[in-house]
């Protein structure tokens, strides 16, 4: 299997040696896509930048754990999402309004519901930033980063069932906002 990575291997080797130039190159390559990830999880652009820095520090510190079993993009992506989750956990305020949900509440959301209005990424990102924090993290982990409810519950230290309900509420919120146009 011939892999053309246009220098990625050399960059990774340089990062393994704590070489600043290689670290800079890695940052330049992946910052745009990783910043997009952070923006999804943050309240503001400034917070997203903090998450980005945290994420890259984690990348540089743990780059020796990258074994090549997945693509580098996948690996760096998971490091960034973990950084977002850590950030969320560490900045957690007393969030009662979502955790204290009424489990009897019936959410009549049609699972097959599709977004009919034409929207673009910019709009989605905008709404994402406006979404209440507790809904947003569950929504992102589930709908975009493919976490299972069990995994989300484990990361956030809550019950799986409450994650499902939170997700429903997030979807409802998003659809409403998108429908408003």
């Amino acid at each position: 299997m011939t892999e053309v990575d246009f220098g990625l291997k050399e960059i990774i080797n340089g990062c393994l040696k704590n070489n600043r130039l290689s670290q800079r190159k890695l940052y330049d390559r992946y910052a745009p896509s990783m910043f997009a990830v952070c923006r999804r999880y943050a309240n503001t652009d400034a917070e997203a930048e903090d998450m980005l820095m945290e994420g890259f520090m984690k990348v540089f510190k743990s780059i020796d754990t990258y074994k090549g079993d997945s693509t580098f993009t996948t690996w760096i992506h998971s490091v960034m999402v973990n950084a977002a989750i850590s950030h969320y956990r560490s900045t957690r305020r007393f969030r009662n309004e979502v955790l204290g949900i009424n489990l009897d509440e019936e959410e009549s959301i049609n699972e097959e519901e599709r977004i009919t209005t034409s929207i673009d990424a910019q709009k989605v990102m905008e709404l994402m930033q406006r979404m209440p924090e507790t809904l947003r993290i569950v929504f992102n982990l589930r709908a975009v980063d493919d976490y299972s409810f069990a995994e989300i519950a484990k990361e956030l230290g809550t019950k799986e069932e409450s994650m499902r309900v939170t997700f429903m509420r997030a979807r409802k919120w998003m659809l409403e906002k998108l429908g408003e146009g």
Partner: protein
Amino acid sequence: MKDIKEILDNYNEQPSEDVWSRLESRLDAEMPVHRTRNTVWKWAAIAVGVIAIGAGVTLGILRQSHHNEDFAEVNKTEQPTTTQPQESVVETQNATSPQNVASSQDEESTIVVEMQNAASSQNAVSLQEKKSSTVVETRQTPSLQPETPAKPVAKEAPKTNVRQEVLPPNSTLAKQLAADPVLKNLSGENVEWTPPAHLSIPNLFTPNGDGVNDLFVIQGLESYSSPRLVVRDKNNRIVYQSSNYRNNWDGGSCSDGVYSYEFTFLYNDIENQATGKVRIIRT
């Protein structure tokens, strides 16, 4: 809500410019770059290696001197113009048996042999100079050592090119040109993928009719479809373009210099682009 995922799939955004400098400060604070003990040991090892090579070279010359010993002595007596110190060296040599000279007075006998073997004018070549020439010889070999660390740099730099016959790999020019072609799909996202063949784009070619590197040849071209090439000069004017490039550009009427290229191609129905710089040298 699979749609959301698809919508955001290629979404990228540039963070503000100062994020890297902040990150760099954190790196300097938490992961400083310093000369570790390993580095010191590395230099110690190199120094030992230099001394070992120096000793080896001297021994090699001495072995040669064994054959020339008698010859050297005969010639010495016939040349009264040699300076005093040399004669004293010769005299001490005569005092002892030829075989033993090598073992006891290594450096001096080496100097004598060298002067004889030089076969050029023997006037006023001071011992000092000759001594320094032997030292210089051994010093030259250490230059081999520093080159080894330089080699990885030369290998690193031309990441997609293996053809630099004209430029020495560690010349500043080669380093300047060894731009890392950046692979992006046309949404601007950096792409990692496994193509069926290696793609190698030269950073230099010499269209001078000598049959070597006369064309701008992209190795691996045939593995991709819709190969398009656009070449621009330093003023960003297009000097060549082809919507179905066949590795047949000979530089046209372009003068020697550096040009930038954009090579666009399809792989698995995804359009990708490699960009970089290439130098034309005809002389």
